[in-house]
C-alpha cells in the first residue's frame, strides 16, 4: 500500500512540473472544446494533435493526449445538458435527463452534478489504476508470445461482444483493420506484402493516415451529406449549486456509476459509451420511481456521467500494463507511444516509471483542473456552439491535411488519407461502425508477430502451443464469450442497452 502512494507521489512530482501542467491544461481544454463541438470527436483530435507533439518529451505528449480524451468527456456533457446536443457519443444518455433539468431551470445543478460526479469517478479510477498496475504488470511479464496472442484474441472477442451494433458487422470491421495492417514489408523476411513496390508502403499505412481518413474526413463527409441545420437553444445558467437533496439523491448514483464504469472501462471494447448507457439502465432499473427518468431525474445525469469518466480512465489499465488497447482511442495512444520510441507493454512501468506514474498522476491533476475551469467557462463553451459548421469543417480539414503531411512530407500519403476517407464514408453510409477497424489495425501486426514467434518457438506443434495452461484458458474464455454473445437471449439484451 505504501508503495502505491510512494509511486503516486513520484508521479505527481512529474506531473506538476510547469511544462507538464501546461500541457495537461492545453490537452484538457482542447478536449473540452472538441467535446463541446459536435461533428469532431476525441479520436480525430488526438490524431490531429499527434504530429504537434513530436517536439515534446514523451511524457508531456502522452499527458496532453490523455487530457484530450477525458476533457472531451466533460465537454460532451455540457452541451448535452444545455442544448440537447451530445458532443460525444458517450453523453447521448445525458441529454435524456440533463436537458430536461435545464428546461426546468435546473441547468446549474445538472452541470455541477455532472462535473462533481466526473471528478469523483476520475479520482477513484486514478487510484484503481495505481493499485492494479503493479500486480497486472507482474503477471504480464510472465507472458510469452503464445499467451500474448491469445490475450489479444480474447481482447478482440470482448471488443466484438461489447461493441454497439450488430456483432457480425463488428467482426467484419476488426478483420478489415487487421487485413489493412498487413500491407507493409514483412518484418521477418523484408518481402513486400501488397506494397506493389511502392516505397511509401514499405512501412505500411501510417495509423495516423488511417485514423484521419476514416474519422476526420469520413465524419465531415457524413455530416455534410446529412445536411442538417443545427438549432441553438441557449439557456441562461442560473444558480450552479445543487441543493442538499440533489446531492443526497445523486451520491449513490455517482458511486454506482463509478464502480460500473471502472469495471467496464477495463474490458476491451467497453469504454465510455457502453458504460454510460449501462449506468443509465441500471439507475432506472433500481430506482423506486423509474417514471421520473426522462423527465429530469438527477440520478440519470449523475450515474452515466460518473460512469463514462471512470471508464475512459480505467481503459488506460490494459494499455499501460499489457500494451493492449481497450478501444480505438487507446489504439491511438499506442501509436503515439510508438512514435515517441516507447514500445508499449509491461516493461514501461519498470523501465520508464516517470512516464507511467507521471501519466497516471496527470489524470488526477487534469480532472481537478477541469472541475475548476469548466464550470466558470460554461458560457464560453456554449457560445462556441454558435460557430457555424461551414467554418468549422474546413479548419478541421486543414489540421488533418497538415497533420498527415507533416509525418513524411509526402503528398502520396495525403492521397491515401483521402482514399481512407472515402472508404470510411462508404462504411458509415452502410452503417458499419469504424472504431473497431482501428483496433484491428493496431492489433494486427502485434498478433502476427506473436503468433509467428509462438509457432517458431513451439517448433510448429500447434497442439502443444494451445495446451499451455494460460493460453488454453484465454482462448477457451474467448470462445465462451463469443458463443455467449451469439446466444439469442443475450443478443436481445445487448440491443436493449443501446436502444434506450
Amino acid at each position, binding site marked *: 500500500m505504501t508503495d502505491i502512494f510512494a509511486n503516486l507521489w513520484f508521479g505527481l512530482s512529474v506531473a506538476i512540473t510547469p511544462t507538464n501542467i501546461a500541457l495537461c491544461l492545453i490537452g484538457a481544454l482542447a478536449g473540452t472544446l472538441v467535446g463541446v463541438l459536435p461533428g469532431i470527436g476525441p479520436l480525430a483530435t488526438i490524431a490531429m494533435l499527434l504530429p504537434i507533439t513530436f517536439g515534446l518529451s514523451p511524457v508531456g505528449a502522452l499527458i496532453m493526449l490523455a487530457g484530450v480524451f477525458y476533457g472531451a468527456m466533460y465537454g460532451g456533457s455540457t452541451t448535452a445538458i444545455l442544448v440537447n446536443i451530445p458532443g460525444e457519443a458517450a453523453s447521448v444518455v445525458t441529454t435524456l435527463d440533463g436537458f430536461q433539468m435545464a428546461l426546468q431551470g435546473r441547468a446549474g445543478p445538472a452541470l455541477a452534478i455532472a462535473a462533481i460526479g466526473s471528478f469523483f469517478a476520475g479520482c477513484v479510477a486514478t487510484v484503481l489504476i495505481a493499485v492494479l498496475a503493479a500486480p497486472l504488470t507482474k503477471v504480464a511479464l510472465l507472458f510469452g508470445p503464445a499467451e500474448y496472442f491469445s490475450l489479444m484474441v480474447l481482447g478482440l472477442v470482448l471488443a466484438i461482444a461489447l461493441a454497439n451494433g450488430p456483432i457480425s458487422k463488428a467482426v467484419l470491421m476488426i478483420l478489415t483493420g487487421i487485413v489493412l495492417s498487413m500491407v507493409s514489408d514483412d518484418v521477418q523476411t523484408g518481402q513486400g506484402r501488397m506494397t506493389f513496390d511502392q516505397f511509401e508502403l514499405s512501412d505500411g499505412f501510417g495509423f495516423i493516415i488511417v485514423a484521419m481518413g476514416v474519422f476526420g474526413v469520413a465524419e465531415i463527409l457524413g455530416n*455534410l451529406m446529412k445536411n442538417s441545420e443545427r438549432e441553438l437553444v441557449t439557456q441562461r445558467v442560473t444558480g450552479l449549486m445543487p441543493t442538499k437533496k440533489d446531492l443526497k439523491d445523486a451520491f449513490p448514483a455517482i458511486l454506482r456509476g463509478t464502480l460500473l464504469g471502472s469495471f467496464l472501462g477495463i474490458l476491451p471494447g467497453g469504454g465510455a459509451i457502453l458504460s454510460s448507457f449501462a449506468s443509465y439502465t441500471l439507475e432506472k432499473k433500481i430506482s423506486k420511481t423509474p417514471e421520473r427518468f426522462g423527465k429530469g431525474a438527477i440520478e440519470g445525469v449523475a450515474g452515466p456521467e460518473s460512469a463514462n469518466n471512470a471508464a475512459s480512465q480505467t481503459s488506460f489499465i490494459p494499455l499501460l500494463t499489457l500494451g493492449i488497447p481497450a478501444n480505438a482511442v487507446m489504439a491511438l495512444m499506442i501509436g503515439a507511444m510508438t512514435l515517441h520510441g516507447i514500445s508499449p507493454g509491461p516493461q514501461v512501468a519498470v523501465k520508464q516509471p516517470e512516464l507511467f506514474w507521471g501519466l497516471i498522476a496527470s489524470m488526477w491533476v487534469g480532472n481537478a483542473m477541469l472541475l475548476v475551469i469548466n464550470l466558470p467557462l460554461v458560457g464560453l463553451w456554449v457560445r462556441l456552439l454558435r460557430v457555424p459548421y461551414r467554418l468549422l469543417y474546413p479548419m478541421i480539414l486543414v489540421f488533418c491535411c497538415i497533420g498527415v503531411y507533416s509525418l513524411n512530407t509526402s503528398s502520396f500519403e495525403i492521397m491515401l488519407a483521402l482514399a481512407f476517407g472515402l472508404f470510411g464514408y462508404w462504411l458509415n453510409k452502410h452503417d458499419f461502425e469504424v472504431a473497431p477497424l482501428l483496433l484491428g489495425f493496431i492489433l494486427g501486426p502485434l498478433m502476427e508477430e506473436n503468433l509467428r514467434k509462438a509457432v517458431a518457438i513451439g517448433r510448429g506443434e500447434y497442439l502443444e502451443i494451445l495446451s499451455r495452461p494460460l493460453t488454453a484458458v484465454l482462448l477457451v474464455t474467448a470462445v465462451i464469450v463469443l458463443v455467449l454473445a451469439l446466444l439469442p437471449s443475450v443478443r436481445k439484451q445487448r440491443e436493449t442497452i443501446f436502444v434506450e
Partner: protein
Amino acid sequence: MNSPDTPPANARGWIANPRDFFGALVLLLLALFVLWATLDLPGQEGFQLGAGSIPRLFALLLGANALLVMASAAFTPGPSVRYSLPAALAVAAYCSTGLAVYRLAGPPLTAVYLIATAFLFLKKFDELGIRAPVFIGVAIFAFGVFVKPLGLAIAVFALVMVSAAASREFRFVESLIWGVALGVFSALFFILLLNLPIAALPPVLLSK
C-alpha cells in the same frame, strides 16, 4: 448517394437489406484482392510461418464473414440505401477526364482542372447529391498537389476555398477571408512556432 431512406417494400428489389449487403460486398472484394495480391508470398515452411500465411488467414476470415453477412442481408429485410446511377456516371466521367489531364499535363494542372470543373458544374453536382464528396475530395487532392511547389499558405488557402464549397451554406467572401486567415495562421503556427519542415511560401520565390 443520399442518407439512408426506407422506401416502400416494393421498391426494394431482390435484396432485402441493401445497406448491409453492399457494405459487406466491398469488404468481400477487399478480401479477394488481398488473397490475389499475396499469392506469390510464401506460406508455412517447416516450423516457420511465412510472410503470406497470416495475411491469407485473415483475408479468408474476412471474406467468409463478408459472405455470411451478405447472405443474411439478402433475406432479412432491413434499411435501404439510395444509389444513383447518374451520380455514379458523373463521378466516373469526372475522374476519368481528370486522369486524362493527369497523364497529359501532370498533377498541378490536374488539380486546377478538377477545381475549375467542380465549380463550373456545381449546380449539377448538387442536384446529383454528390456535391460534398466531390468538393472535399478535390480540396484534399489540391492540397496534396500544391503543398510542395506552392508552399503551405497557398495550399491551405486552396483547401479551405474548395472544401468550403462542399456545403450548401457556402458564402464566397466569407470563405475567402477564412481561407486567407487559416493560410496565414498555419504558416505562422506550424512553421514558425512548431518548426515543421515545410515551406510556407512557394520555394521558387524564396530561392531568389
